[in-house]
């Protein structure tokens, strides 16, 4: 490779190059001072970029209160309001078949009572006339 062909590969780290390109670059750098110097500058750049991961960027002072307010709002939206004692809820869950049966019987009883009441209402005007 000549210098013009080498320029795209000078900033690359070795893991970014296939073996053939890496070998060609190494061979060229061994004989070209200008390309070798430029590759060294890029190596320094990459090393300094690696260093900034440990450099702390100061977050805004209000960031933590913002985060906790947002988390708290989310928590209140997702939690259901349960006004009954936990023991009552547990008892209802354990006896749900019995409760369903009782509710069915109650419906039948209510329906029967309603029908009787309607029947008695229908009879009443005839009794009043007599």
């Amino acid at each position, binding site marked *: 490779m000549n210098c013009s062909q080498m*320029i795209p590969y000078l900033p690359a780290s070795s893991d970014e190059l296939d073996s053939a390109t890496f070998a060609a670059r190494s061979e060229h750098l061994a004989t070209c001072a200008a390309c070798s110097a*430029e590759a060294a500058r890029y190596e320094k750049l990459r090393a300094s*970029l*690696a260093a900034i*991961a440990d450099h702390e960027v100061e977050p805004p002072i209000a960031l933590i209160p913002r985060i906790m307010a947002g988390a708290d709002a989310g928590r209140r939206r997702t939690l259901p309001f349960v006004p009954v004692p936990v023991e009552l809820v547990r008892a209802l869950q354990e006896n749900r078949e019995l409760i369903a049966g009782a509710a069915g019987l109650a419906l039948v009883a209510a329906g029967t009572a309603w029908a009787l009441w309607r029947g008695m209402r229908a009879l009443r005007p005839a009794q009043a006339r007599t």
Partner: protein
Amino acid sequence: MQIAPELVEACRRGDAEAFETLVRQTHRTLYGLVYRIVGNAEDAADVTQDVYIRVWRSLKAFRGDASLGTWLHRVATNAAITHLKRRGRLAEPVEEWMEERLTTRDDEDARLSANEVERALERLPDSYRVVVVLKDAYGLSCEEIGRQVGITEGAVKVRLFRARRKLAQDLLAGGVVLPMRSPARRKKVQG
């Protein structure tokens, strides 16, 4: 980021105080990562807040197959990249192919502070900054970066070349050169 298992467990149980402790222990690192990807403080604060709210809501589903610190990094990286995508900021700028050598100055051995590097990163186009931060600062592979950003590995390498070239021109033109750093101290983030 090392996070005590007891703290993780308390957060999974929904302990709000434990969660605040987790936030205090980790927010500088995550904010720094997000800031370097999105490029400005206002967006970084918004994204970091969203990250922690997402973490709070999904901690119960955290399986523990990776460390919580690694998981937090992954969530933060994804959130920052998604933020840029939604705003159409990851499109690659149209540029001439650069065939010239870097220009240099006589005071090439001058030292550079981390702040100078951070400022130079801010001046990069978003699409270049994302790849060079994830690759050179946080150690992700080109394949991982391509998967996260939604571009091919080849496109990642092109953007890396352009990003590094712009940074080198910017920093060298500013009269500074960058201190070498031992690779052993480098922080690797699992993307």
